[in-house]
């Protein structure tokens, strides 16, 4: 449907703009600062840190999607949101399944003395160093 006005800038999608941008800036920078601070100060063990910064990144991305990209279920934005929700599992699948497969592949086929922190050298099955 047309929006019934002559001024293109009165379109509802333009009217979405607002103070959320300032909030996105403050929250986004604060969250990134938090991650940076945690890593700098070695607040947790490496595995814990990895989980913590991943969680912060997820929250920051979510905040930006809502405040900057206006992901919501309003009339003008609903299809954008639906498309994003359909795609997020694909992002996770791509990286997750790929990492899973290569994790096993590296352990089973490649010679990786000491260099590989995750797998002890004894588990490299395809021959010694």
């Amino acid at each position, binding site marked *: 449907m047309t929006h019934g006005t002559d001024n293109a800038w009165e379109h509802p999608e333009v009217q979405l703009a607002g103070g959320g941008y300032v909030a996105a800036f403050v929250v986004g920078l604060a969250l990134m600062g938090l991650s940076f601070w945690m890593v700098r100060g070695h607040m947790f063990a490496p595995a814990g840190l990895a989980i913590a910064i991943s969680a912060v990144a997820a929250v920051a991305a979510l905040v930006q999607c809502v405040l900057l990209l206006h992901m919501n279920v309003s009339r003008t934005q609903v*299809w954008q949101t639906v498309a994003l929700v*359909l*795609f997020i*599992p*694909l992002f996770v*699948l*791509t990286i997750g*399944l*790929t990492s*899973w*497969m*290569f994790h*096993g*592949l590296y*352990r*089973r*086929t490649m010679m990786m003395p000491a260099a590989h922190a995750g797998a002890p050298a004894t588990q490299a099955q395809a021959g010694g160093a």
Partner: protein
Amino acid sequence: MFVHIDGPWSPLLGRLALSEIPYNNPILIGTFAFAALLAVVLVGLVTYLGLWRTIWRDWLTSVDHKKIGIMYILIGLVMLFRGFMDAVMMRAQQAMAVGPHSAGYLDSPHGYLTPYHFDQIYTAHGTIMILFAATPLLVGIMNILVPLQIGARDMAYPYLNAVSLWLTAAGAALVMASLFIGDFAHAGWFGIVPVMELPYSPGVGVDYWMWAFQLSAVGTTLGGINLLATIVKMRAPGMTWGRLPIFTWASLSANLISLSTFPVVTVALALLALDRYFGTHFYTAGLGGNLMLYNDLFWIWGHPEVYFVILPAFGMISEIVPTFSEKPLFGYLGMVLASLGIAGVSWGVWLHHFFTMAASPAVNAFFSITTMAVGIPTGVKVFNWAFTMFRGRLRFELPMMWASAALFFLLVGGLTGMMNAFATNDYMVHNSVFVVAHFHMMLLLIVYAIFGGVNYWFPKVFGFRLEQRFGKMFFWLFTAGTAVVFIPMFTLGFMGMTRRLAYVAFPQWGPLLDIEVVGIAIYVLSAVFLVAQLYVSFRDRAKNRAGLDAWETSRSLEWMTHSPVPFYNFAVTPEVHARDERAWRVARGVDTVRPERYEDIHMPRNTAIPLWLGVLSFGLAFGLVWRMWWLVEVCAVAIIALVVIRSFDHDTDYTIAAKEIERMERAIRDVPSGRPAADDVIGGVPAFRQGV
């Protein structure tokens, strides 16, 4: 910065030199002579008939979704012919080069093709059939049908649609250029690493393959965005999601796949390009690269691509079966969910292409199970078609014959696919011609659906039906050819024959390979009847003229406008009341094309920019292949400049007055039945004329 390549290089021509023209190969010279003769005849014919102006104004610069669709289909048919000729050559080679005592011709130890040439032919066959035949044919059909089925005037972005077309055309042209200038890749259609890396393939073949692939991938991604936005945003009033025609649902699912997976193959190939041009180490065997990464990224696209081509085929079958069963489709909701389900599951199955490559057992088990899960939504579809036919008034006209044969091939291909889905069984048949026969069954099902769809919608697009007698002979011969080629191929797979053999070591395989050649000969014979069918249909086009609804029992919205469809699709946008709107209106006696009043129509203006973008993309890719850096720079700058210049063009649309629409509509209606709508060769005048 660039990797140094040994060998001659000049600033003007890059790596291109006269020695790259294969003038000493009689096969390629013969092909070139044939192509050149064909070109001369076509150019002469067009000049004689004075059609240059029409071709330029009404076709090459068109942004009309129907014409773009037809041009897509033409590209697909030309490339289908090329891919078929490759198949003929492979069958002949394998039948000749059997056993150590078989004769050799043309510098080849056995048969008539050297192993290197043979490798290029199977690579070209696969690449062409998937990317430049099946994909353009289906994208073309979706282009024509989707806007008509949802009651839109055009696609959401008509200009982008033309850009997609010309990018695909540029890719196809690049594949064709590789025949006569340089050579083509020899690493299989999906590319084997590290064979494709520069040290092992220093020639231009891999570059040709890579850039042609890339152009087609970008074109298809943009086309997918266009179709998705069209379906979401351009539906006529009343066309709710629950009333969307099933082919449109299938297109929606297919394009969700294309939008989400083509970018991955773009990355896979871009990383290969970085390896080959800048010397990075993504897929190299040493220095921290990992060649399995290529397989992983490629098949993340590769397997969903199979469903990208099969879903529109399923959609076409779902439209044809109800029309010729004279019943509504059984289980609409199940069909919709099955389409979306196939699109969803397609994202979790890619690893079954490399079960044998040392992933851990848990990974193989996971992908084995997801692959088998594809059978569930597919099974739902098969049963829905069967129940649609059950107690229907079945009419075996040509579209229905193709569609029901497609079901048969779906069963054969699907069940053998289930066999391959078992990782344990895959260890036995991996890389054998059993797998080749399996996926040819699946792709042939798509070809059958396409022939069915072409027969079904031809009258909608051109205004007259295709002739049935020759058409049926073509159908039966084509089916016989399929059986005679692929039953022996399945058998050879069980006997242990591997793919891609330029020389067959076991003489006991010879007889079955000979039978395959007989099958190919039947295919060739069937093509004669196809040509005859087209010729007779065209000759008798006045007699076979179709009305609004060519089959009398069609159900969806596209049958509610004239045949051929005027360039503005519907004189007035229809209001939709039901899932099968055409059937709904016929049942209530309100199936008129005469609206109460006419309104102004807003249409996009023709433009030559997409065509130039295609030409420049071809130049860009050709320059990259031969490392002519000046050509790359000129084309890249010109592409960016054209895009920016186009963005300053404010005059991209025009309006047709209501009175003019009324006049054109009356001109169509006043033609007596039994005659072409005008003396125009195609069918109706307004169909292919566009205001400028």
